[in-house]
């Protein structure tokens, strides 16, 4: 099929070998690419190897996967996925990220990479011009992600994917870092790389697959870029980046404050796009072939820490280290963000874990916790302690769920779903997000589908039945909305791999047109939704295989407790109603598994066999 190389690079770190393997055309048709294809290939691997691998073991295959649109010039489609079983949740883990690595990997002659085994000594992988080699990473081990990126760029040029000390030291929420600021943060994929002794991957090349219809593709790209320039939502991302989330969020009560315990805080206004522009912003950057340039470039100083023209904190980080910890100093937040990126940690899980620990300390349950609410200097020290696994940092490094299990009575203020710390959007303001968090395939996540975009009003998808104005404080219609948003999102943001911000103005028609120009295959909206449904059930089924049941499709008590103040005061989503409707739509049984019939309908008979075995 056009648009693909049709091959994956298989790296075996036990044997120190690298070799190309062919990708089945049937899989490309059914799973498209990105995280969908990674999940399918992951299932094949574990069926032939260890069904329930230790997330930090050699038998947990780690995938880096591009999509068919990567590197084609289609705007807002530079992203790629990293995926494996998560050390943080124990379930299917994935994170995607933009920048320039995806096009470089594709240009190096591969659609993706699968890494198995564990290297006896630190190594890094170089992929260039269809060839690949493993190199000694002894000199790189211990260096932060930005230093590593600089050194590899000097040695090889090209684009790098690296881990920092947090990944090396197996911090459960360690991130994978590209280009000194593009972070694949969620679910701890940096620790998976660290456990394998894989410090980095360098990709270089320009051998991109030919699209099926180059003339049509050029015309489509021109049209898409033109519409992006007219789309107010997309232009807002261009103007202020993801900080629009703070500006709008404080109006509707979407921004969590003080470990999700209060609904109002004067400091919130100091974290909006206005103060950000005035105090720390010095420029903006884009990903490959994206006219939005939503990435912020900042300079800042806090205490002895200086940031010079570096990637600035996104909305999620301004909330997770800002409002969640009551820090309203943007200079400090820019420094905290820079340090977290260099150490290689997910800022959402890290900030949420610190917030949880501070509340535990406040209640007298964790007296050894350092710092206090609003104490940015303590956060900077704690980040280093977490990455190096020192003192209290060693306990924090395992994430808030693991810490909570050591502290009786702390479940009341834990904010994880399935072990993943909730992102910075409050389901008490947007009720559909309660269901989206509860049923996301990787734990609490606002990016595992398009539900956040649809419910917030960023996306408008009438062609798949999502054109109405949803009452954000109601359960009405939300089960259907979340399921359809997941189905399209699995292909749109998961497999294709479109950016959910830059491509927020695009719909299933744009996705189908882009896939057609690149691969030559026609897609209807129905076919896209069915592919998405298949992928959702596949990832969900992997979770079931690792012990996920209906009991896990819940929000923690803290996220459902009504707030006493703020725009979302008194509002609580009716999760039970939404879940009941969702289970019926998804053909999920009372135990949380999809029915055999549903899995067979989606060509997932092998998954059904694993989940049901000899059961009648």
């Amino acid at each position, binding site marked *: 099929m056009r648009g693909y190389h049709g091959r994956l690079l298989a790296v075996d770190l036990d044997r120190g070998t690298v070799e190309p393997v062919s990708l089945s055309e049937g899989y490309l048709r059914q799973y498209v690419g990105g995280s969908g294809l990674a999940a399918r290939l992951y299932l094949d691997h574990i069926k032939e190897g260890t069904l329930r691998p230790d997330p930090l073991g050699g038998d947990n295959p780690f995938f880096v996967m591009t999509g068919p649109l990567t590197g084609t010039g289609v705007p807002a489609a530079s992203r790629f996925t990293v995926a494996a079983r998560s050390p943080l949740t124990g379930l299917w883990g994935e994170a995607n990220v933009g920048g320039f690595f995806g096009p470089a990997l594709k240009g190096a002659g591969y659609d993706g990479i699968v890494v198995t085994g564990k290297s006896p000594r630190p190594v890094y992988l170089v992929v260039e011009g269809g060839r690949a080699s493993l190199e000694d990473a002894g000199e790189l081990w211990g260096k932060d992600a930005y230093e590593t990126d600089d050194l590899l760029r000097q040695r090889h040029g090209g684009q790098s994917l690296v881990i920092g000390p947090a990944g090396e030291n197996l911090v459960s929420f360690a991130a994978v870092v590209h280009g000194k600021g593009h972070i694949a943060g969620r679910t701890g994929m940096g620790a998976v790389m660290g456990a394998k002794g894989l410090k980095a991957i360098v990709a270089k090349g320009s051998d991109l697959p030919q699209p099926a219809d180059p003339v049509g593709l050029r015309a489509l790209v021109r049209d898409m870029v033109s519409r992006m320039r007219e789309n107010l939502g997309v232009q807002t991302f261009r103007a*202020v980046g993801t900080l629009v989330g703070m500006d709008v969020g404080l109006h509707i009560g979407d921004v969590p404050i003080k470990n999700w315990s209060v609904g109002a805080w004067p400091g919130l206004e100091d974290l909006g796009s*206005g103060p950000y522009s005035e105090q720390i912003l010095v420029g903006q950057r884009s990903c490959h072939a994206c006219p939005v340039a939503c990435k912020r470039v900042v300079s800042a100083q806090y205490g002895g820490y200086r940031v010079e023209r570096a990637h600035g904190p996104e909305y999620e980080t301004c909330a997770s280290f800002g409002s969640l910890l009551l820090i309203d100093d943007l200079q400090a937040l820019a420094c905290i963000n820079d340090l977290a990126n260099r150490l290689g940690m997910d800022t959402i899980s890290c900030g949420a874990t610190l917030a949880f620990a501070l509340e535990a300390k406040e209640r007298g349950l964790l007296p050894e916790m350092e710092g206090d609410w609003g104490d940015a200097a303590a956060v900077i020290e704690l980040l280093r302690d977490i990455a190096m696994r020192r003192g209290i940092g060693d306990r924090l490094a395992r994430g808030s769920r693991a810490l909570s299990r050591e502290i009786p009575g702390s479940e009341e203020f834990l904010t994880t779903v399935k072990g993943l710390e909730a992102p910075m959007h409050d389901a008490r303001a947007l009720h559909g997000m309660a269901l989206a968090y509860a049923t996301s395939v990787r734990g609490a996540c606002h990016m595992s589908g398009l539900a956040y975009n649809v419910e917030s009003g960023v996306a408008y998808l009438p062609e798949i039945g999502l054109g109405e104005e949803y009452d954000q404080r109601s359960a009405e219609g939300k089960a259907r909305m979340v399921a359809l948003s997941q189905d399209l999102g699995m292909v749109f943001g998961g497999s294709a791999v479109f950016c959910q911000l830059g491509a927020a103005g695009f719909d299933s028609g744009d996705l189908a047109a882009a896939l057609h120009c690149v691969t030559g295959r026609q897609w209807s909206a129905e076919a896209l939704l069915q592919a998405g449904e298949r992928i959702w059930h596949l990832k969900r089924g992997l979770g079931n295989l690792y012990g996920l049941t209906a009991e896990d499709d819940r929000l923690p008590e803290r996220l459902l407790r009504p707030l006493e103040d703020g725009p979302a005061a008194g509002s609580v989503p009716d999760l039970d109603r939404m879940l009941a409707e969702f289970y019926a739509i998804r053909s999920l049984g009372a135990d949380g598994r999809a029915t055999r019939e549903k899995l067979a309908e989606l060509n997932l008979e092998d998954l059904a066999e694993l989940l049901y075995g000899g059961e009648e």
Partner: protein
Amino acid sequence: MGVFKDAAELYECIGGLFRRGAEHPEMGPKIRASKLIIKFQYTNPEAQLTIDAKNPPPEGMYFNVIEGENDLQADVTMSMEADVAHKFWFGKLNLVMALNRGMMRAKGPIAAILKLLPSIKPAYELYPQYLREIGKEDKIMG
């Protein structure tokens, strides 16, 4: 018919809210600090309100509120149906959706518009209070 029977009623309700905002100790200084001229163009009924935070305001107010057409050069122009504006000032409009679907159109620097959002938060409580005071309880949204 929409919420307002004519421009005069719109000026009384939304214009009145703006004038209250111009006297408000929290909202007023923040909008004044923006130094912006913002024009609101309404349809059904046709009307225009202007917030002028650039030129000196009258005594006791932080900015000017002007009803009807004028020659001021706007930094930001917001266009919408009067009913959409009414819903917005109750805090009941999904602003992101309204902007993305063209129910509310904005002309001018997006960053400047977003910067004003935190300033107008008190208006959501002020609007129903004000309508009640002027005997327009029937216009209060539940």
